[in-house]
């Protein structure tokens, strides 16, 4: 083996292996059952938060609204929109839960890496 690979080759191979591991590590550590909050502002996905990993509640500001991030839950805490429908959605706690603030053009949805939802969509 020593004859086939020079020292430099081995260093490159080890570096490549470490790089691959680093790239896939976050994905591998994310459990299938983890709840992920996806936050969209103006149609763009701006934040993804693993709610299952939240140890202490905190707030984040998005387009004219404040989201409360808790362990296993996300909710609109307040917003500057006139109707406050978004706040009325309450806490999103399971995969498929979605809340929106139409005047502020924001949507928050909760997903799982592997969803076990029995339905694809809801008509309303």
């Amino acid at each position, binding site marked *: 083996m020593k004859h086939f690979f020079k020292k430099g080759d081995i260093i490159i191979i080890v570096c490549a292996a470490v790089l691959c591991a680093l790239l896939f590590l976050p994905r591998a550590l994310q459990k299938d059952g983890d709840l992920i909050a996806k936050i969209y502002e103006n149609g763009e996905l701006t934040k993804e938060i693993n709610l299952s990993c939240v140890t202490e509640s905190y707030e984040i500001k998005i387009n004219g609204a404040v989201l409360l991030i808790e362990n296993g839950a996300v909710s609109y805490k307040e917003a500057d929109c006139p109707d406050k429908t978004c706040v009325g959605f309450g806490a999103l706690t399971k995969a498929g839960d979605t809340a929106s603030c139409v005047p502020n053009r*924001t949507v928050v949805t909760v997903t799982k890496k592997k969803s076990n939802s029995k339905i694809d969509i*809801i008509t309303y």
Partner: protein
Amino acid sequence: MAMKNEKAKKAAVAVCVLSAVFVVAFLVMADIFHKPLRETDKYSVAMGTVITQRLFSRSDAAKECDDIDEIINSLENKISWRKEGSPIYSLNKNNTAGCDEELSDIFSRSRAVYDASSGAFDITVGRLTTLWNIGEETASVPDENEIASALSFVDGSKIDVSDGAVTSESGQLVDLGAVGKGLACDKVREYLEKTDISRAVISVGGSVLLYGENDKAEKWSVGVRDPRGESDEYMGVLSVSDCCVSTSGDYERVLQKDGKTYHHILDPKTGYPSDSGLISVTVVSSSGFMSDALSTACFVLGREKGEKLLSLFDAEGLFIDSEKNVCVTLGLKDFFTLTSDKYVLSGDAQ
């Protein structure tokens, strides 16, 4: 000896290279033939509601999601009476506007549903909807005189399309809100047909386009919102594919005044929120425009007349009355499963 070593080394390198080629080829084939379809999701806001996109394809479909958003925004700019510069805005302001083939088709199909529903579906309800303004901050219960005055402008038969122009009667306000979301579904389908995407589900504020089958090559499972439950609760599941599904319900936008609840689906004949005994109607059709228009018309007409209307347009439906009885048309019966014990499935639909 050195020669022998050199040969062995070359052979080992060749074996390594060949093995690598086989492994790469296997992984590529496995990726193409066995990898589950990749899902690209997007959530955005347009037409005053939430747009949910779930596209399934072999590769990332972010561009297609963005294109779909653009298509819906562009449609909104064309058909919304609120958008300054839109043909509908001009029509409401000047009682005449330029009308291309697409708009002409929208007016023509609107007239067909207006005639078949004896005016239960009417795009000239604009005066009434702006008077009530249900769902907006300025919503209020109008008095009888105001309603009578607004009603005098409601008459879908006065809309005329000819020579590339549409005209209405003085004072009339056209509101395509009852078909906008369904139209968006149709436009998205036209776009998807030009792409490599074979499976997708798009929800435009609850009007749903089911494009192809789902990612498991089965019919899509569409939950029908529980009209007396939370926004994420459904009372039954429809198993359908390659179609559009729209629902009209009395829970979507409401005004509460003096202990009374007023919903947003107005009866063009009375000027008041429809009181047909139904609390929700879901319509399945090959056309998004039709599913959207017919769900509104059926909600206003009630179950019996609604069923007859659906049969005229080759559509199927699910009716829920205020007693929580659920009635499903014959063509949809085998594709609906009641999942909530709060509702009773009745078996007398035709």
